[in-house]
């Protein structure tokens, strides 16, 4: 089984430096792209590869790139941003990619920037990722020294400046427009969808935003072709995926596996199954802001469409496992406290509704729940749903709660009836 993304990871040591990366074929794709491929060639490759955005929404990458306006008469500079603000609880895939092989990301960025004719790149990184930041900074320095970044790259006349922007730590910056506001120095609040960022993004200029994992795939698509990339997958979405598992499993961690690997396989073969004495009760398959899936869904292949069909979202592909010895109300309370804290405060339902949700869940968990609280939670799930809020934060935050109320309703009722948490 091929594992292009993680093949050059050095387990337990420093990642490959530029020379080491070049030795294993690094920057070949970059050289090939800039010297012998046209922008249209690369665009076609990426489209044909069926690569979908790895940030959570799963938007086809080629389509997103082609929404950048034509270079002719375009306002300049044009920007490319790599979203490395991985703050979804349960997600750590971008971290291992950046720590494991920083040059892979930079190479992907260069090829992408070349394809969409962007001249300034940002890597917007989560502030806690200090190790990744140090490694990326070193890699950027090396790439500048070797002429992969900066002025007239590889003598092709293409210029790219790349900067690492360390976030001050807000979950909302995972929302692309809030991220843009944040780089500009404004409050990290989302922007309205019109105009699209590709038309008017960072400082009003055409801006493309891609997830770290998405960009890491690009060199391999260029090197090996679209067909090869599609062949990596078990489903129609191309490529491999870094899947992660957290929770009380024997071997939590993350692995590069074909897209479309089933939840059961990931959980049992790679994460080693549940710890002794524990039973599987449910999982948030795509990170904290996705709906619970339960026993009956274990054979769902992990790809965008299948997970959606099962009633949840593929998200970042990093599962959180709930076992039978952990209180689901407590778990959801933990998540809602996080989302409530991370609300940017812009729109009413999210700003006011999330703290209220968290307070109700805390009360239930503390044995102070009231029967009508369930109705109120239902009401909150409805009122914080899609279309009601300005961005997707609150609807995402409601997904684990909504599904918990569906699958673990008896646990909520037990808390309220017994006036205590049955797990304590």
């Amino acid at each position, binding site marked *: 089984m091929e594992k292009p993304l993680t093949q050059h990871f050095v387990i337990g040591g420093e990642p490959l430096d530029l020379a080491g990366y070049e030795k294993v074929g690094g920057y070949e794709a970059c050289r090939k792209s800039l010297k012998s491929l046209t922008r249209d060639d690369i665009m076609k490759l990426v489209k044909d590869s069926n690569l979908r955005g790895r940030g959570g929404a799963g938007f086809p990458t080629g389509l997103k790139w082609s929404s950048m306006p034509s270079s002719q008469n375009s306002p300049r500079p044009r920007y490319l941003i790599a979203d490395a603000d991985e703050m979804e609880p349960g997600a750590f895939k971008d971290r291992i990619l950046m720590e494991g092989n920083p040059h892979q990301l930079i190479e992907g960025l260069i090829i992408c920037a070349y394809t969409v004719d962007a001249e300034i790149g940002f890597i917007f990184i989560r502030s806690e990722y200090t190790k990744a930041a140090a490694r990326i900074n070193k890699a950027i320095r090396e790439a500048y020294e070797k002429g992969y970044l900066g002025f007239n790259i590889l003598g092709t006349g293409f210029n790219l400046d790349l900067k690492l922007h360390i976030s001050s730590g*807000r979950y909302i910056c995972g929302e692309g427009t809030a991220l843009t506001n944040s780089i500009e120095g404004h*409050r990290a609040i989302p*922007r*309205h969808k*019109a*105009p699209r960022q590709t*038309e*008017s993004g960072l*400082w*009003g200029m055409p801006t493309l935003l891609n997830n770290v994992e998405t960009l890491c795939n690009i060199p391999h698509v260029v090197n090996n072709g679209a067909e090869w990339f599609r062949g990596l997958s078990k489903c129609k979405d191309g490529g491999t995926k870094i899947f992660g598992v957290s929770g009380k499993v024997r071997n939590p961690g993350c692995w590069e596996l074909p897209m479309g690997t089933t939840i059961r396989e990931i959980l049992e073969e790679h994460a080693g199954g549940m710890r002794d004495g524990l039973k599987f009760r449910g999982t948030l398959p795509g990170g904290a802001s996705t709906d619970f899936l339960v026993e009956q869904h274990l054979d769902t292949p992990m790809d965008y469409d299948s997970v959606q069909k099962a009633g949840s979202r593929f998200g970042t592909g990093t599962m959180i496992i709930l076992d039978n010895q952990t209180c689901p109300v407590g778990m959801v309370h933990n998540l809602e406290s996080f989302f*409530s*804290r*991370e*609300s*940017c*405060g*812009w*729109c*009413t*339902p999210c*700003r*006011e*509704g*999330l*703290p*209220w949700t968290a*307070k109700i869940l805390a*009360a239930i968990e503390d044995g102070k729940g*009231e029967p*009508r609280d369930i109705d*109120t939670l239902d*009401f909150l799930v*409805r*009122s914080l749903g899609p*279309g*009601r*809020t*300005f961005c997707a934060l609150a609807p995402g935050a409601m997904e684990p709660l909504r599904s918990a109320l569906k699958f673990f309703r008896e646990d909520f009722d037990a808390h309220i009836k017994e006036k205590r948490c049955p797990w304590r």
Partner: protein
Amino acid sequence: MATIFIDNVPYHVQDGQNLLSACLSLGFNIPYFCWHPAMHAVGACRMCAVKQFRDESDTRGSIVMSCMTPASDGTRVSIDDDDIREFRAAVIEFLMLNHPHDCPVCDEGGECHLQDMTVLSGHVYRRNRFKKRTYINQNLGPFINHEMNRCIQCYRCVRFYRDYAGGRDFNVFGVHDRIYFGRCSDGTLENEFSGNLVEVCPTGVFTDKTLRKQYTRKWDLQTAPSVCPHCGLGCNTIVGERYGSVRRILNRYNHELNGYFLCDRGRFGYEFVNCDRRIRQLLVKDKSGDSEAFLQPIEKQQALHSLSEIFRSGAPVIGLGSPRASLEANFSLRSLVGPENFYIGISDPEFQMISRIIEVLRNGPAHSPSLREVEQSDAVLILGEDVTNTAPRLALSLRQSVRQKPMEMVDRLKVPRWLDGSVRQIVQENKGPLYIFSPVATRLDDVATKTLQLAPDDIARIGFQIAHEIDPEAPPVSDLTANFRGLAANIAETLKQASVPLVVSGTGCGSIHVINAAANVTRALRSKGKRAGLSYTVPECNSLGLGLIGGGNISDCFQRIMSCSVNTFIVLENDLYRRAEVQITDQILNNCKRLIVIDHIMSRTAEKADIMLPSGTFAETTGSFVNSEGRCQRQFRVIPPTGEIQEAHQWIFDIMTSLQWDTLRHFSDIESIGELLAAEFPVFKPLPEVAPRSSFREFGQKIPRQSHRYSGRTSMLANITVNEPKPPDDPESPLSFSMEGYQGIPPASLIQRFWAPGWNSSQSVNKFQSEINGPLIGGDPGQRLIEPSASGKWSYFTDIPEPYKPQDDLWLMIPKFHVFGSEELSSLGPAISERIPKPYVGINPKDAESLGKQEGEKVAVAGENFSISVPVRIIKSLPRGIMALPVGLFTLDGFTFPQWVRIVRD
């Protein structure tokens, strides 16, 4: 026009607007908080949700925010669907999680948009059982009270203060449900438009601190439409009164003029009406006895008798008009003393400038734009005017004008202009052209393309050159440096490329050359077929009206007094000490045999009066005023006649009565006086139509100044009488001092309060507009008196001044205006006076160095007729050799500007 379907009923609406304004324009009640008609949509509060359907077959629909959704042709929405109702109530419930239940003691109660929207949404029962969040409030200075616990985080305040008004000392802090709107730390809000927070805030976070000191509920106030007396713009206001004192000023929407916003001088300057320097009694000074005579009360009949004696004696009586008195008062005085004995109550240079402004506006070809038109200008040149300090509300409009040009970027991306968040994201820091030439740095410099501080004559010269660059027929300035010529050429090119360029100038730097230069630039632009506007600021609320009536020069008036050929001198609402230097004024008043002052404030002139007739302030006067645009507007008194105070024109009428004039009845009321004015001066022909006549009735009823009848108001005087007294008559207007009458929407110039069923706050203005952001129903108040003549009899001014040269021993003294302090009346109020700077003289740092003076050290300045000693303030932007003297901050403030002065060395 677009056809939209609201709950399956088709409606025709204007293209290009959002669903919220379309629905509100149609008269539907859709609740909203963060949307503001002037600041548009950002989609934060989620209150204005509606359900949108793809087409006829779509029965599920999806929830959208009406403020963020275009009302394009074929749009189908439901504004009253079950989901919508539940969601709107949910939004209110969310807001109420933390909103204190303090309505009964809240300043906003009874005129609170949050209350109205809560009732509208149907939310009644609070399910939240957890503790509320609390905040620490800040002291925001003398104007605004801060109560953050009431905040519902609609972000309107910060959007107004920072984005709209350009303020910097106010922001939003914090995240999630700990959002805070305020300053970094306690302190006065410095922006000149901070008072608008009172009306922008949908609830009681920002309330009027001056009202708080003498608090009255909206329904307890007696209110009337008025015109702001504190600068030449004539913004429309609503004045609120109770028990004979003015309690507050609110904005009165006028689509063409002030829109939704006032400046702080206009909003808080009213306190002088209640101050202890008010003259409330008829006073006379008996000079027959001791030399040290005091003004003492006298019976009205006795006073009028002695007045008639004076006139009957046959000795000449002369009158001095006033730029802050109504047209009717000025004209009555002119008629009483005779045109040959009527003098303009402003300094000669100012009279010259005002006359020139009138001449330029009349001859055209440029017209004077309304503030709305100013906002739509796409290139602006300011010559010599510190607008923020001389005509503050104009500065707010100019600040919006720089957003016009960048809107092209927005249009290109096909983003509607009302999508404010997106617009600001696209526009970023791009600004349209704004060039400012002024003697000192101004508050608009932060949005200017280019600013340059020059002496007034140099400002005029660059203006002349710009005109020449636009049209070679205009005279060139031959001896200009290459730099300036290049700059002039650049500006000329920019103005030529604009579709609606605007030139702003005025009396602010005291130079007629600057006024001429501004005229040349617009004339040149017009000659090139541009729709150029020309906006002149004038110092006072009726400067232009007085100028249109005309009269003799004040210097001639003084000469007549000095030559002792005058028996009696009548001064109408004017303080001579503001018109001429103290030495001169003292001389004049000492030489005056008999001084009669008609005024409402005990000024230094009034103190010297032999007879003092107490007139009404703006709150006690019905009358007409002409603003700097040339718009004539009517203000209506709000305080019923009390004691001996009566309108100035009534005093003059009383004198006429005692003289038994046969043309008497013509002066009995403002309408008759208006007819006479219109007959004598063609320019005042529209005057009688400025507002509905006193005989006007709506459904046979007058328009009441008081709100609907309720028991609280009827018991107002219960300590005096338990019977409800008969309301005072008001024969001069169609308004009544009563609760009875037509409580619906009156003609626009009679709007005494904004209120509609279910809409108790000032947001109810949307019910008075013909469409959202459009004119008031029936047309906006006011009549433009001056339009450029079609015959086009104009020529270029050719009198180009010599370049300014710093002199070794002489300093060019120019005026420096302050929004708080330079205007006579507002400065008397306690709130405004807290904001008035200390007197100073401003000089360039290098000049200070050569004088060996540090900031704050005193320096002695001597001019032709004065000498003063004042602390130095170092002003970096001031050109060398120029001295800026703040207007109005001195007890001896009638300086002539500009003039050459000396510094007396220690």
